[in-house]
């Protein structure tokens, strides 16, 4: 059913449709409306779940870890400082290979304190071993949330659904909400083979000597790699049911004949679409590569997607100080062995919620003509605001 919904309410409804046994979450802007809406659904009897109102994000992550380990479908949501407080548990969840779903309402990380959107939080736990999927709009966030529960179950890996804080979480959008019947028929019951069970007692989280550690990490990496086709297939399955794809691993849009590509994740893709529609005539056409799966990284699909490009603009919504762009660096690494690889122009934009206007499209396109441009820049920085020694 099509309804105008705030992103956070839509996510809460989508989670409710998946009938998690246990939900644990701690409020933080801009994720708060998700927890509040879930709490309300529980209070109104519209959602039957063990809602554990924890005293911190550290416990939220630990509660869902324990719940899933004990055989329950589990869900949590957080952002920013919450992601960082959870960090130790997030690595642990992934290392234990516990399937559960978490929404990250992407927000910058302090200091300086900022409640606004960028990808600094989910990037900080990039190597935790979680699947990370990014959503362009709230419809994708709804669809991806439902898909995430199935991906988690099929891969026995935790799935992080990243949606831009405020830009998506607090925005009203027309959403096609799937029905309970659709989801119930599509999402199999949670049945975790390695669950804690007194009829078959097993031990988890044991001390592993150097003799076995490398093998376990290898197996985790292999499982993440095997998740690539699963993520793609589940999106196709969902599309077969609803007619809506969220873009599999990555999606190529715009002008396939263009020599310039722009790669981005999350809501920025929407801005670029609009920017291209408005400015393509003057600025030239581009191929937009929407990267949905950041972990596992779809290297093969990306090499295919950039074929024929002379320039590839890679947008980062976070920064690794002392290196530069994170997505940009990864893309460069993945394309390094291509014979005709495009020249990469890596820019961080929209840090700490800096508005990304549609005109950015034209500015980015213009920047590739600058032969002296550095390989990486904070594109929308205003150096005039800085003391000379900080520029």
């Amino acid at each position, binding site marked *: 059913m099509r309804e105008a919904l705030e992103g956070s309410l839509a996510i809460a409804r989508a989670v409710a449709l998946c009938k998690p*046994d246990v939900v644990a979450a701690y409020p933080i802007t801009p994720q708060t409306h998700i927890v509040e809406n879930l709490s309300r659904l529980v209070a109104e009897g519209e959602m039957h779940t063990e809602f554990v109102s924890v*005293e911190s994000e550290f416990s939220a992550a630990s509660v869902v870890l324990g719940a*899933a380990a*004990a055989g329950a479908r*589990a869900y949590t949501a957080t952002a920013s400082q919450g992601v960082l407080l959870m960090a130790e548990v997030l690595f642990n969840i992934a290392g234990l290979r516990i399937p559960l779903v978490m929404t990250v309402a992407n927000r910058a990380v302090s200091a300086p304190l900022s409640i606004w959107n960028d990808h600094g939080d989910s990037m900080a736990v990039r190597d935790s071993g979680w699947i990370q999927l990014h959503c362009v709009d709230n419809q994708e966030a709804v669809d991806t949330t439902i898909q995430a529960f199935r991906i988690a179950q099929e891969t026995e890996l935790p799935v992080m659904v990243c949606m831009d804080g405020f830009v998506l979480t607090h925005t009203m959008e027309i959403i096609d909400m799937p029905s309970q019947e659709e989801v119930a028929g599509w999402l199999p019951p949670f049945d975790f083979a390695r669950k804690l069970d007194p009829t078959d007692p097993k031990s988890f989280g044991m001390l592993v000597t150097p003799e076995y550690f490398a093998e376990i990490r290898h197996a985790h990496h292999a499982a993440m790699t095997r998740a690539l086709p699963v993520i793609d297939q589940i999106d196709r399955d969902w599309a077969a049911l609803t007619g809506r794809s969220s873009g599999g691993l990555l999606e190529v849009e715009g002008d396939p004949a263009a020599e310039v590509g722009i790669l981005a994740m999350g809501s920025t893709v929407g801005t670029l679409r609009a920017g291209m529609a408005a400015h393509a005539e003057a600025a030239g056409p581009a191929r937009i590569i929407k990267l949905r799966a950041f972990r596992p990284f779809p290297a093969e699909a990306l090499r295919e997607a950039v074929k024929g490009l002379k320039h590839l603009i890679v947008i980062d919504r976070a920064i690794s100080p002392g290196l530069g762009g994170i997505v940009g660096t990864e893309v460069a690494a993945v394309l390094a062995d291509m014979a005709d690889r495009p020249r990469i122009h890596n820019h961080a934009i929209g840090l700490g919620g800096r508005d990304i206007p549609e005109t950015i499209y034209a500015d980015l396109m213009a920047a590739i003509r600058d032969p002296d441009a550095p390989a990486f820049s904070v594109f929308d920085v205003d150096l005039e605001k800085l003391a000379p020694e900080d520029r």
Partner: protein
Amino acid sequence: MTDETRLSELRAKFGRVPPAPDEPSPKPLTLREKQPRFEGLVSGHRACQGCGEALAARLVMESAGPDVMVANATGCLEVFTTPWPQSAWHVPWIHSLFENAPAVASGMEAAMKAQGKKTKVLAFGGDGGTYDIGFQALSGMLERYHNILYVCYDNEAYMNTGIQRSSSTPHAASTTTSPAGKDRMGKRHLKKDLLSIIAAHHVPYAASASVAFPADLQRKVRYAMGIEGPTFIVVHSPCPLGWKHASALTIEVARRAVECGLFPLVELERGSLSNVMPIRSPRPVRDYLEVQGRFAHLMKDKDPRAEKERDHLQALADYNIATFGLAGAAQDANDTGGAAAVGRGGPLVGGM
């Protein structure tokens, strides 16, 4: 492979019997029958000889029975029981991190509720995991009223990482981060009164126990297992390595801690003191200190600082005895003298 039949047999044999104090049982149970021996933690693990924690955990598991699952914090107990690919646990067991066992257990308990299962969730932590780094998660677990029995194995320091001080380390004890030296007499701060903080959550049951009094410990575990709600037991568990006493002296050292008043055995229900183990004849604190290397610097008779610290510790013990009313009338079957005179299965009461 699952084995429901075996589990139901085990449940029938060792399972939790809801307390029915008003109904006299038709046939009196023998002492052995009263104390079922389910082996949840088996031998072959890697604990040091005379490890109090290993003994305490075995006793807890015996009384808790098979229909449980355990969330275990990082620490000696976790490390010595589960060197991959071996495990000494015969119940479902999970270790996640140092500071989150209460929260992991909360999730497990929520999962049991959601699935309509009755399996009781246990959470285990050392004193570091409980008094210090996992304290917040524990408070949350108690406040949210999860049906979990939390057991703290208190060996009064971070043993797993090599005997560093914790907030449970007694005043003046020497550890590797509170070493006794020319300018220092060991730890400068007091042992945290955790039990009072737990009790302030008004949980149904909180108790202290000791490996020196196994029947008392097991009675407390069984009592807590019968309660639907958060319960907490701290078990004084000597560590021969960290306390620097002979491995064969674990029980003796633990007993002296109780008998001198430094580690009172008490029970609190809904925040109020409901029971204590009286001390038949309180011993001087010195008896407890002198058998442990961690207090060796307090035994230098010519050092006035040593005498001062000994007096300080004696005063703390006297305070406990007065506050909890531990000075018992002689010959109480349930006092430290009576409780120590045990065969397996419980105190030897009244001619039995």
